[in-house]
């Protein structure tokens, strides 16, 4: 660990002594950070360490309670993102800010639309310019006329990034820019980051994927509990984890239990759904079955249709040896199936409701006597759960939306734990979750498997699949393309199986 001594250059942007609290919880506590022109500066830390808050303050989106921000050596007070933009400070926020019911072109060009002689916006010209911008930045596969609502998440993220970098910013913040990108787009983004760095932009980005940080960061700043705990030129992952969590983490991936006997919990025969073709598989009790492959190849549809949230088209589903029909999530729950989605904000949690209400939502029926909720019992259950999962929340009645991403995910997982399903469908549950929380989630998965529950796991992280699963099925264009087990459980093998036919032909 080589701590950086002294500053080589005048920082392009600097925050000093920044504090900010939300409802009594310190998100940032006397934090300082600076970035110099022509560097890529990674900001790492657990969920809730204050990275996003820092970026929001430096990007002019929120104001600090105390502390100063200076750009190019001069102290500034941003009245809003607009003021930051005028000084060349742009931000790609973690939660996307695109306008869904407007076209990609309108989103890219808003505030700088070309005008006709009458002073009105020239829509054709705007669309052409958007097309040119996308092409110039290597994102020509995105249709500028499409509604944002209609394009996939990864393209939305790309548009958000394109919009920021098309302003050729002097300072660019990227808050988890890769969280919804697929591999090819990550390669594209890193190309853009390098280009901007070489022309003197100061770039600050956050990520939970260590290989990305290792590949592209010139300096790494670690945040913990709202504070900067050090800036480094080189930082091995183990040391970073120690710094981020304040404790040493043994192996990230816990030991998986031995393969269970062949007692089927869930069996699919010639299963078809939208985007899922002829999938047959068997999931055993106590087994962790990984599903690998590139995003958009049917995993999502498989998981959601099994849970009854999308339509299944043909085939048979057997739960515990009996053929069943699952038409909606209620029926899935009745058959002991639970789905934990990746997008906890829109697909799982009721953000404005309390931690307690969210945790007990799936078991309300059990909590009620003569249709009247027993509040004491509900409290006990919820409290037990957040203790067990170590959810960091100021209290049971705080809205779940105020928690950090990792803690939200824990609440969502916890909800299903209370319902005690036999089959867990875990869809990319660790996306955007920090390393310590990941570890806790992994341990939880192992514990569930040991209890004899069947787990089907999709992850965009091949490393994770390789370490957690007993078997991995690789999906390609909606079909099962390969089954891997034993020594084949390796991230590179999983990824190459996912793309194999394209390389071969």
């Amino acid at each position: 660990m080589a701590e950086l001594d002294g500053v080589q250059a005048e920082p392009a942007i600097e925050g000093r002594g920044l504090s900010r609290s939300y409802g009594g919880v310190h998100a940032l506590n006397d934090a300082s950070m600076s970035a110099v022109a022509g560097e890529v500066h990674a900001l790492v830390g657990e969920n809730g360490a204050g990275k996003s808050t820092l970026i929001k303050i430096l990007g002019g989106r929120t104001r600090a309670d105390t502390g100063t921000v200076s750009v190019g050596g001069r102290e500034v007070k941003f009245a809003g993102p607009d003021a930051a933009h005028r000084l060349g400070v742009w931000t790609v926020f973690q939660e996307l800010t695109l306008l869904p019911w407007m076209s990609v072109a309108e989103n890219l060009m808003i505030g700088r639309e070309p005008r006709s002689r009458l002073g009105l916006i020239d829509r054709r010209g705007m669309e052409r310019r958007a097309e040119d911008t996308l092409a110039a930045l290597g994102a020509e596969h995105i249709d500028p006329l499409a509604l944002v609502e209609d394009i996939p998440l990864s393209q939305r993220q790309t548009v958000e990034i394109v919009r920021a970098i098309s302003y050729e910013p002097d300072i660019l913040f990227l808050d988890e820019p890769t969280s919804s990108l697929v591999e090819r787009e990550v390669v594209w983004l890193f190309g853009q980051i390098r280009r901007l760095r070489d022309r003197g932009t100061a770039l600050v980005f956050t990520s939970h994927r260590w290989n990305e940080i290792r590949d592209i960061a010139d300096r790494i700043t670690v945040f913990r509990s709202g504070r900067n705990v050090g800036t480094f030129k080189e930082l091995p992952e183990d040391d970073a984890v120690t710094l981020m969590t304040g404790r040493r983490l043994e192996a990230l991936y816990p030991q998986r239990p031995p393969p269970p006997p062949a007692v089927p919990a869930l069996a699919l025969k010639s299963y078809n759904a939208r985007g899922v073709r002829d999938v047959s598989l068997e999931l055993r009790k106590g087994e962790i079955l990984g599903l690998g492959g590139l995003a958009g190849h049917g995993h999502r549809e498989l998981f959601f249709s099994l849970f009854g949230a999308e339509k299944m088209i043909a085939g048979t589903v057997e739960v515990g040896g009996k053929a069943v029909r699952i038409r909606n999530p209620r029926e899935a729950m009745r058959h002991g199936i639970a789905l934990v989605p990746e997008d906890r904000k829109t697909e799982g949690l009721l953000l404005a409701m309390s931690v307690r209400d969210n945790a007990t939502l799936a078991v309300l029926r059990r909590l009620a006597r003569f249709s009247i909720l027993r509040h004491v019992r509900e409290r006990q259950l919820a409290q037990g759960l957040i203790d067990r999962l170590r959810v960091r929340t100021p209290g049971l009645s705080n809205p779940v939306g105020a928690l950090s991403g990792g803690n939200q995910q824990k609440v969502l997982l916890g909800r299903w734990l209370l319902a005690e399903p036999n089959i867990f469908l875990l869809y990319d549950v660790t996306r955007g979750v920090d390393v310590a929380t990941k570890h806790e989630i992994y341990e939880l998965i192992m514990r569930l498997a040991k209890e004899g529950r069947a787990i089907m796991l999709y992850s965009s992280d091949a490393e994770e699949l390789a370490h957690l699963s007993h078997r991995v099925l690789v999906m390609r264009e909606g079909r099962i393309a390969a089954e891997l087990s034993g020594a084949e459980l390796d991230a590179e093998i999983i990824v190459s199986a996912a793309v194999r036919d394209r390389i071969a032909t």
Partner: protein
Amino acid sequence: MPKLSSRPPCVIELPPEPRAVSDNRRPRWVHRLAQEAGLFLAATMLGIAVILYCVVFLIAQRHLPGGFELTSTVNSTLPLVLAAVAQTLVVLTRGIDLSVGGVIDLTNGLAAITLDGSAWGHAGQPGTGSIGTMILGSLLVLAVGGVCGLINGLLVTLGRLQPILVTLATLSIFQGIAIRVLPQPGGAVPQGYTNLLANPNWPTSVLWLVALAVMWWMFRRTRFGVGVYAIGNDAAGAAAIGVPVASVRILAYVLGGVCSGAAGLFLAATATAGDATAGNTYTLTSIVAAVLGGVSLFGGRGSGIGAIFGAFVSSMIVNILFFAHIDPLYQSFYEGVFLIAAVVLVGGIGHLLRRRY
């Protein structure tokens, strides 16, 4: 600064994207259809309503409706058209304006005593205003509408109050003021003014209608117009890209108020007199017209042109019921049924249109 490590990343180099996305781009009209689905459906609905109207008219009158029917329909619908556009401006920002009816009450009452100058004792006889009083009166009425909108906008934006609460309260307030302004139905609108706005014999109102549509087309192509849509889509997202959310929102309410004021003027011109309670129904009918026109109550989707279509659809429904000899007592029952049917239809077709697979 240390150079990048030359270590290969854990990312496997991927071959180019197999599905060539740029080749299967959908043509422009498909995108337009997706974005403006509500507008196209409203136009279709209006077409069907007009055909139905012609059929019942033909059966009842033994001839097809002609120029007179067109003029009188447009004349009588224009106040609703303007009210619907006023409503649309606010609904697009994800608000709702229940005070539309109150503003129309007030401006309608005001029109009756200012257009002929009787408010400031100008005219010799009531109902014979000069060009000066007509222009002055019109501007005053529109300005009052704008001020009403400004009050709503300020309360919503700076007071951080919910639009439905604010406008529910101001609805009563504006209605109260309207009664003070014109305690009894009466006053008089100069004949020349009626001829200009809602001539029963010559389709001036059609020209106003076209002008309104053109104005909307222009509005949609201003930064302000884009801002209104942006706020309705996602106010936080709009703020993040630099849309001045507060001022755009206030301005949308002001412009809505001006449109309601214009509705008050046209109502006075059609009736040739004022009534401080004549506007009450417009609060609900303007919402109905906007929704029929494909304007989403969740904000950010829809257009004023659609609202214009929506206003005509609802007036066509009334006409159809009339010529089909439906007992007037049952009219509102059937209006309700039609509204539900239309909304369900629009929702269903819109859903089908937007299915991606």
